[in-house]
């Protein structure tokens, strides 16, 4: 196993542990956070705060380095525009998230942990993503 794959494996393991320990694989914890006008549960705010405080500090430091430790360069998202595609996509994601309380990371960890809800959700999530991929390809062909 080369070092970049090992780094990704360890990073993924930390991510999965964080999701499980913080309670984010419990979709009712998420729905509780989103239920501002009902039985509100602040848990997600603590998790997001803990994570963003770390990244807001560490990313500043890391991105000052000439390059990553194991690869030739940083590969950051190039897009900066707040466009219709971003907002519509985020809104569609939000509706799905609010319907059931799973987003991609916790759903994948939940699937591996044997949660029946996640076992139904994840295949549909992959199918939804693939649908968009196909539509995008068709749109490109139309443009040409």
């Amino acid at each position: 196993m080369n070092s970049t794959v090992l780094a990704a494996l360890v990073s993924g393991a930390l991510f999965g542990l964080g999701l499980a320990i913080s309670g984010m694989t419990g979709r009712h914890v998420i729905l509780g956070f989103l239920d501002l006008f009902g039985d509100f549960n602040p848990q997600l705010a603590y998790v997001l705060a803990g994570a963003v405080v770390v990244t807001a500090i560490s990313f500043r430091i890391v991105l000052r380095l000439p390059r990553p430790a194991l690869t030739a360069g940083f590969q950051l998202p190039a897009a900066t525009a707040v466009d219709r595609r971003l907002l519509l996509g985020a809104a569609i994601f939000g509706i799905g998230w609010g319907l059931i309380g799973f987003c991609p990371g916790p759903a994948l960890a939940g699937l591996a942990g044997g949660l029946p809800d996640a076992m139904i959700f994840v295949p549909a999530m992959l199918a939804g993503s693939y649908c968009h991929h196909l539509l995008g390809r068709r749109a490109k062909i139309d443009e040409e």
Partner: protein
Amino acid sequence: MDNWVYGLFGGVLIGLSATLLLWSIGRIAGISGIVNGLGTAPRSDRPWRMAFLLGLMAAGGLALFFLPYAPTRVQTGSTPLLLLAGLLVGFGTRMGGGCTSGHGVCGLGRLSWRSLAAVLTFMAAAVATVYIVRHLIGAPT
């Protein structure tokens, strides 16, 4: 499970994970993006994605068998709703270029306005959805 100590601790682990991935191989720890790239990225760009997802699922899945407060292994959502929600989450995160981790944890950490706009949008849409489903329709989810 609602305990702010576990929440903060788990959140810090997630932040450290994103830090390690950026520092070591220069990539953003956005789960939807990592998954989507499995099918479309150049072949040489796929092993790290597989490894990251394997680590996430192995460690996260295993932890759920040991944590006393892990969700119970009982189906609690209706199958059609789980399928519909899955389709929307998959479609929307690909269209919007990120989910809670990519736009949330990493995008906010990079102080990206684009990601902040995405986070505010999906949060608002999700809060509105829960309000409609739970309080206007009165359906259990």
